[in-house]
């Protein structure tokens, strides 16, 4: 008996004019998967996430989320079916409190976000869940602060908190620790270690140490193509990968 993958991508293609950014990509994310996506700048990693989430439209190919075809759905419909992402560049509601950023995501998940007049107990539950989640991520104390006043590292954690508030089945992490000074980055890495075990996760990350520790499988992308894939040890030893990418960062 085979179990259905949480996310299944087949033959995904995308080109901007002559520039091919995704070429026949096949990827399966099983329930509880930890897959790392690496590749040099411009390899098409973020494009891949944008294609999966619907912010970009593929030229051809299929995407199935728990067996359901989602490739022609709008982003918000994919989210409601359990596909969440974080952004490489923070996309936060900067004028709002950190907690409200999370609470509004909870409200959307619970279907409360259409409520206009009768909402007091429901919103209260959203806020409390949001605060609990922030505390879980070790940033409970920033709940009351405006996002624009938060240090960058905590804003990055907030990106993750918002995605987790959606209780996704599949989570796409686009460089969660990008731009965070290394002495703070460990807080983000700790959070990654503790993500729910049954959540399927794809992570883009430039810090090879992090990705080799976190991922059970690594996919190497080059010019929109899957160059190779396999267990971290195999990837680290692959001369081709070392030549195009790792050679510069891993000793």
């Amino acid at each position, binding site marked *: 008996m085979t179990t259905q993958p949480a996310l299944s991508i087949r033959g995904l293609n995308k080109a901007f004019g002559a520039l091919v950014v995704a070429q026949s990509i096949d990827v399966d994310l099983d329930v509880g998967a930890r897959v790392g996506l690496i590749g040099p700048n411009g390899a098409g990693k973020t494009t891949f996430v944008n294609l999966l989430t619907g*912010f970009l439209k593929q030229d051809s190919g299929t995407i199935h989320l728990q067996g359901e075809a989602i490739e022609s759905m*709008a982003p918000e419909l994919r989210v409601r079916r359990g596909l969440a992402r974080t952004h490489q560049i923070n*996309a936060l509601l900067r004028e709002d409190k950190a907690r409200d950023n999370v609470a*509004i995501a909870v409200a959307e*998940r619970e279907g409360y976000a259409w409520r206009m007049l009768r909402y007091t107990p429901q919103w209260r539950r959203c806020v409390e869940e949001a*605060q609990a989640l922030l*505390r879980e991520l070790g940033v409970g104390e920033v709940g009351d602060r405006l996002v624009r006043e938060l240090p960058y590292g905590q804003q990055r954690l907030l990106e993750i908190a918002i995605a987790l508030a*959606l209780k996704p089945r599949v989570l796409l992490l686009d460089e969660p620790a990008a731009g965070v000074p290394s002495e703070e980055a460990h807080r983000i890495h700790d959070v990654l270690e503790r993500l729910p075990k049954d959540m399927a996760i794809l992570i883009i990350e430039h810090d090879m140490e992090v990705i080799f520790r976190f991922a059970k499988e690594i996919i190497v992308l080059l010019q929109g193509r899957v160059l190779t894939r396999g267990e971290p040890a195999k990837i680290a030893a692959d001369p081709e990968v070392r030549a195009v990418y790792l050679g510069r960062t891993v000793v």
Partner: protein
Amino acid sequence: MSTMQTSKAAGVPAERIGWGTMVGAVVPWVAAIAYYYLAEGYLTFGTQIMIWILFALSLDLVLGYAGIVTLGHAAFFGVGAYAAGIFSIHVTGDPVLGHLVAIAVSALLGFLTGAMILHTSGVTFLMLTLAIVSVIFEYANKAKWLTGGDDGLQGMRVDPLFGTFEFNIFGNTAYLYTLAVLFIWFVLSWRLVQSPFGRSLDGIRQNPRRMRAIGTPVWWRLLAIYTISAGMAGSAGALSAHSTRFVGLDVLSLLTSGIVTVILILGGTRRLYGAFVGAVVYFVVQDWTAKISPYFWEFIVGAMLIATVLFLEGGLMDLGRVGRRLVDRFRKPSDAA
């Protein structure tokens, strides 16, 4: 290390409403009632101000909270006014029924036009709203049989409110009726902007991409608030028609959209009470300075608008905050350096 689980009982303290805020919230309503008793000869003026407050309030929901930049809001105010007027001539003079019809018609117009153009934003959207209000204006101008064209809609019949209260020439009934309608809309709006729905609109204004990434149906949300706001603007238009028993073509003019925008920006967006401050200041300044010269008041209002936009980010409603900051600075001169 343990895996995360949703825990509860986070114990977030409930938001406290300060005394200052509460007093500030009551003042406008007390003032409006006091005005009724104190300014007997000027009730028509007060009614006009409240109608514009309601109109500006409706604009605040779309422009302030949802970030929909429109110059076509006169379409809803005007169509609401015409709907109320035409209904009173051809169907019945009952003001409440006519009012509800006006709200429904303008909300429907908001829904249909919003559905056509809300996939756009920014300058494109602005131009489309201008186009729509211009088309409606021209139609009202040409359809003399229905609207009276540029002569205006004449012969409106307004029955006593609830069969009892006559709309007299002193405007007592019109004033109190308008105040009541404004109050209802205000309470609804006040509730709405704090709701999850209202927060999602504010989120869309700040970052639509973020909202889509948490599953917000952005287009539907915008369409919903656009429809509600259109109904509200139509309500203001109906009040205008019923209180003056006349509808002129100018309700649909670009100037009407412009004035309501000036009022809102002057008073302050995203505060609800900004509409109150803006409308009062606008009309009082107009009333006083117009006695000096018919063109002078436009200069004064223009200068105030420039000063507000340059120095008061949140409109005249920011004056209190700015004043407090100045006092603080005066008290602690060491911090000012």
